[in-house]
């Protein structure tokens, strides 16, 4: 006998599996397996047998014997597969006659298709190559973005010249989705932001007896920046993400391919109604957010600072100019265009799987919010320079 391994049940000490292997004078390696060869009971590792097979001179054949096997599951198969694979590598014949019929069939199935050795392994690229790849990816991303903006612009021109084609019902549905159905969340967020702004202002301004200027703070703050930004962020998370998910799902279901093969440009049919709807509804939503935000400030002023609503509105009217209002509305229009373009681009350029839909939606929301903040910074600097 060359080797014997016994695994015992840890609690009772009862012998569960038995493995014996020995070379015979005719060059056969006899491997006998006994007991309950089932997972979870500490099965012997095949290393001992494998080493014996590999030890020169190699056995002429390996005979597998399971006459005293009480039970088996995949644990036995993995053991035998390792033995059979090693024998195949070394050109050693395997005698499987002593194996149960089910084990023989499963082993035959597992070894029917040879394992592919030509699997491509991702070798880590050198640092400079990775920098280069990132730069090329960045350049391609920008080129893709500019191409998309260009196509959207051409489509818009087509609309002005009556060439663009889309269904009116799609535009109306997008208008309803971007507008009426967003009112609740826009109102809630902007009311709370108006209240917060008034609170923050009130704490400081009360120290100087200048609490009436809360109306200035809330009015100018909401109209110029905060209402458009908050509305833009809400619309990015709500409508922009919905555009992306819808278009990415259409891409995954080949619905966009179906449009292309019928000669219907997806840009006209899918992007244009969404772009129009969002750029039209954003200024209206922003106006609504302005009013709700000012109402929030009014509630705080009336309840905490003893300023009457009429006084507050008079002061707001005095502080807020049309320039503030129009600057905010212009910003919201820009945000609408940015969110619609980002949402549609991420959707149409998405991959064809469920995970690609998720990735595209995440990317649309992140890019949309970054775009809003960057656009705000640019518009704020320009308006400062122009004295608006």
């Amino acid at each position, binding site marked *: 006998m060359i080797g014997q391994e016994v695994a015992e049940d840890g609690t009772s000490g009862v012998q569960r599996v038995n493995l014996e292997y020995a070379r015979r004078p005719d060059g056969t390696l006899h491997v006998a397996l006994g007991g309950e060869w089932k997972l979870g009971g500490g099965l012997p590792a095949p290393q001992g047998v494998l080493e014996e097979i590999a030890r020169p001179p190699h056995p002429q054949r390996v005979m597998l014997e399971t006459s005293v096997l009480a039970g088996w599951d995949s644990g036995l198969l993995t053991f035998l597969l390792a033995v059979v694979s090693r024998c195949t590598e070394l050109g050693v014949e395997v005698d499987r006659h002593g194996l149960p019929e089910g084990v023989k069939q499963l082993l035959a199935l597992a070894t029917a298709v040879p394992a592919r050795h030509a699997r491509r392994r991702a070798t880590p690229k050198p640092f400079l190559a990775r920098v280069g790849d990132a730069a090329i990816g960045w350049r391609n991303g920008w080129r893709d973005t500019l191409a998309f903006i260009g196509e959207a612009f051409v489509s818009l021109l087509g609309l002005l010249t009556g060439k663009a084609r889309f269904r009116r019902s799609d535009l109306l549905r997008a208008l309803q989705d971007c507008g009426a159905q967003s009112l609740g969340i826009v109102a809630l967020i902007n009311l709370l932001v108006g209240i917060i702004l008034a609170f923050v202002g009130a704490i400081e301004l009360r120290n100087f007896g200048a609490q009436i200027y809360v109306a200035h703070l809330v009015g100018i703050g909401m109209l110029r920046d905060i209402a458009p930004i908050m509305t833009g962020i809400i619309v990015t998370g709500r409508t922009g993400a919905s555009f992306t998910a819808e278009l990415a799902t259409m891409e995954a279901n080949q619905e966009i391919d*179906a449009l292309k093969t019928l000669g*219907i440009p997806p840009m006209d049919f899918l992007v244009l109604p969404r772009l129009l709807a969002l750029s039209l509804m954003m200024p209206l939503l922003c106006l609504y957010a302005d009013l709700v935000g000012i109402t929030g400030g009014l509630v705080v002023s009336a309840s905490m600072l003893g300023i009457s609503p009429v006084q507050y509105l008079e002061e707001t009217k005095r502080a807020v100019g049309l320039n503030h209002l129009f600057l905010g509305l212009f910003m919201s229009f820009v945000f609408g265009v940015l969110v619609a373009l980002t949402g549609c681009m991420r959707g149409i350029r998405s991959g064809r799987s469920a995970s690609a839909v998720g990735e595209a939606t995440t990317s649309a929301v992140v890019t949309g919010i970054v775009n809003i903040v960057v656009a705000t910074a640019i518009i704020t600097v320009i308006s400062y320079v122009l004295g608006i």
Partner: protein
Amino acid sequence: MAYGDSVVIQDLNFSVNEREIFIIMGGSGSGKSTLLRHLIGLQEPARGTILYQGTSSGLWEMAPPERERLLRRFGVLYQGGALWSSMTLAENVALPLQEYAIADAEEISELSSLKLALVGLAGFEDYYPSEISGGMTKRAGLARAMALDPDIFFFDEPSAGLDPITSRRLDDLILDLRDSLGATIVVVTHELASIFTIGDNSVLLDGESKTAIASGNPKQLLAESSDPRVHAFLTRSRETGRG
């Protein structure tokens, strides 16, 4: 044909005759659907030309308006139907007709009903794609593909996911289309029953060698081909001759 640097199929040369049912067959991952995407103008080949009768240049060499006119001669049935989910079946069929202003609203409505009736979906005009079964989705997709009375139909795995009886009915429908409309039909499939029932001519793609390993009538290929890979594919045999 390639995705980036990864070649999918190479050295491919075949022709499809008018009014025949041409099968593009091959195992999973052999590039059947990729080849179809190239044929219907969704993807440009890395090298080579796709020529259609009645055109002076290749599909990707011609000017975009000319290509758009050519694409209008195609009817495509996608693997999952690819019906526009926000539209009813009638609207799905009507959209191409509306886009090309082929008829007035009333005629378009009648045409949509006719096309749906031709595929056995009369009365389903106002159903949405989510409300019908897989087989009905395929047939509705076929009705949409028929909307513009195309000369050439492309079917991507029409039997995929269908039970044998529904699959057989779809095969009969494809044969009817060829016989009644005189259309040329290109079918991507690996369903042997369909291949032998409807195929006049075929090309067999092989994922290992990345090219076509046989072409001709499927029944003749089965009877005459000496290539064990062809025989293995057409008989569902495990022996591929690769040892």
